């Protein structure tokens, strides 16, 4: 559906070059929920901007390829590159932002903001028909119709976020990108919204990309997970497998550091802090904090390699690619 190959996107400011995404290869497949996990400043929101084709100065695509395949109404496949994807926003690819107060226009009623997004993209021109369709869709998602007539400030945070989910999925886009969709929401509402997202994806059988710093969220609803560290993807694979047996030391330590209710095991965080994106080290970005560090780690960045079926990791501890192992066998 959407493929990034060795993409580099930097913020070119007068002061410095921030290498927010520095060589990322990733593909979003059809009918899946893909999670992108990482800590603040690891480049995950920049990655989202690349996926959504919304690069604006000072952010610039420096290297790599971005390709999208869009199925048209007549059943043909259309190939899209950077600068073209944006022409199909909302119909082919849509975006669900963090549900803060500030993403909806405070002085315009919700229905009008719905209409904004479809008037240009949708064939429907009859106003009453559109209203009917929107009302039906909200009904499907178990949202009260009254929200259409409300101003954003009249809705609670959870309700606003559900409206945003409805807004982003109304046109049945083939790809939906969700940017920290439940951050700043209470856990009960978070659960409700994540389940709603999963349910919508199940019905539409499209691709949903969820970006979140909370790896518990990824465990609960994603099918595959990509873990980012310092501008790079360090591990990517089926969610269940990655959580059961994380391969990259960062992923291992991160997952092991989280405490659980009812579990009295002593947990430790990872010491040190990530290197700066302005001046990243030559070798593996995690080398300075890694307990298994080797000489080679400081010399060159390990590339992302398939080490088990559908599991990719960028670490010298897992240097033998799947292909080579198969050959030996």
């Amino acid at each position, binding site marked *: 559906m959407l493929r990034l190959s060795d993409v580099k996107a930097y913020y070119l400011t007068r002061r410095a070059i921030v290498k927010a995404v520095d060589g990322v290869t990733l593909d979003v497949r059809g009918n899946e929920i893909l999670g992108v996990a990482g800590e603040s400043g690891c480049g995950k929101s920049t990655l989202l901007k690349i996926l959504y084709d919304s690069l604006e100065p000072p952010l610039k695509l420096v290297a790599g390829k971005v390709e999208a395949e869009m199925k048209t109404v007549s059943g043909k496949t259309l190939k899209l590159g950077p600068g073209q994807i944006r022409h199909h926003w909302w119909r082919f690819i849509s975006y669900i932002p963090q549900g803060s107060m500030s993403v909806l226009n405070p*002085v315009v009623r919700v229905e009008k903001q719905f209409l904004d997004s479809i008037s240009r993209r949708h064939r429907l021109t009859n106003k009453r028909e559109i209203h009917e369709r929107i009302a039906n869709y909200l009904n499907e998602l178990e949202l009260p119709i009254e929200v259409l007539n409300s101003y954003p400030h009249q809705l609670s945070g959870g309700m606003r976020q559900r409206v945003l989910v409805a807004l982003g999925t109304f046109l049945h886009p083939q790809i939906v990108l969700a940017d920290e969709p439940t951050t700043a929401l209470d856990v009960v509402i978070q659960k409700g919204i994540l389940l709603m997202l999963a349910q919508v994806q199940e019905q539409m059988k499209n691709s949903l990309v969820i970006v979140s710093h909370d790896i518990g969220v990824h465990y609960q609803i994603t099918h595959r997970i990509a873990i980012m560290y310092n501008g790079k993807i360090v591990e990517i694979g089926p969610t269940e497998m990655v959580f059961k047996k994380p391969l990259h030391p960062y992923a291992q330590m991160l997952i092991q550091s989280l405490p659980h209710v009812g579990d009295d095991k002593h947990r430790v965080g990872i010491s040190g802090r990530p290197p700066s994106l302005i001046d990243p080290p030559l070798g593996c970005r995690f080398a300075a904090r890694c307990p298994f560090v080797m000489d080679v780690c400081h010399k060159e960045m390990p590339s992302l390699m398939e080490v088990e079926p559908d599991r990719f990791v960028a670490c010298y501890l897992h240097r033998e690619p799947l292909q080579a192992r198969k050959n030996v066998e």
Partner: protein
Amino acid sequence: MTVIFFVPRFLPSDPVTAALGRVMSSGSAMRPEEVQAMRSTLMQLYGLEGTLGEQYFNFMKRAVFGGSFGPSLAFYPTPVNALIGKSLPWTIFLLLTSTLIAWVVGNLIGVLAGYQSRRIYSKILEGFAILLYPIPYYILALILIILFVYINPIFPVSFNVQGAPFSLEFISSAVFNSVLPALSIIIGSFGWWVLSMKALSAGIAEEDYVSFARFKGVGGPAIMGRYVMRNAILPQITVLALNIGAIFNGALIAEILFGYPGLGTLVYTAVVQSDYNLLMGTISIGIIAVATAALAIDLLYPFFDPRIQYR
């Protein structure tokens, strides 16, 4: 805001002595009793008898409830009210049209410049506004007079309206004569609206809901109108309420310089003729009018902003 009515209290006192001083300095010698008699007459006329509280009470009784400021001394016995009644419509007409034109045009240009603040045309517009904004109204008025009355005599030197009231000729000549004073107020306040609207809309263009609208695929004009402008215009309404006093200040001087028959010229006449009642009347009315306008805008504000509800 309504405490404006207390303003007359701020007056540093004794206009009577001042008036007497003027009479005496004009050369005529007077006997003390005459002076005393004149003093008390003046006191009565000015409503300055009794203690401060009584004065205040009397003034309020006369001005607020009776709606009267007494007779004018310069145009004796025409009441001050009649004079004000004649000139106030002129000022309101001038102020209303020019403020409205400046506000609307300034805001439109401002939003344009703010929404696309990186474009060259918006930088040129902003530069233009920066040069215009700090120039006070009366300087603009002088420049306009120099340009269009003396160097390039399109408009008459003094205000000159012809024809019977409300005939076509009257209206057209009134409008023609008002062009320059209006222009000085429009140009004078225009820069401020452009600059403040530009700053506001540039800020709003960075808001999440604007970028989200762009992500939704909403077109440029719709974003500018429904998203940027709709949000930026709200604070501009409040700012209008706050600035109406300053615009009124400018209009007063512009009127005097152009000889426009409004409140400003009346104030000036009162000052020149030392007509205390007229002065009090015009100034009180001016302040009350401005305060009322500001209050009205403040009260109307919730109708524009859906976020404010009176429950």
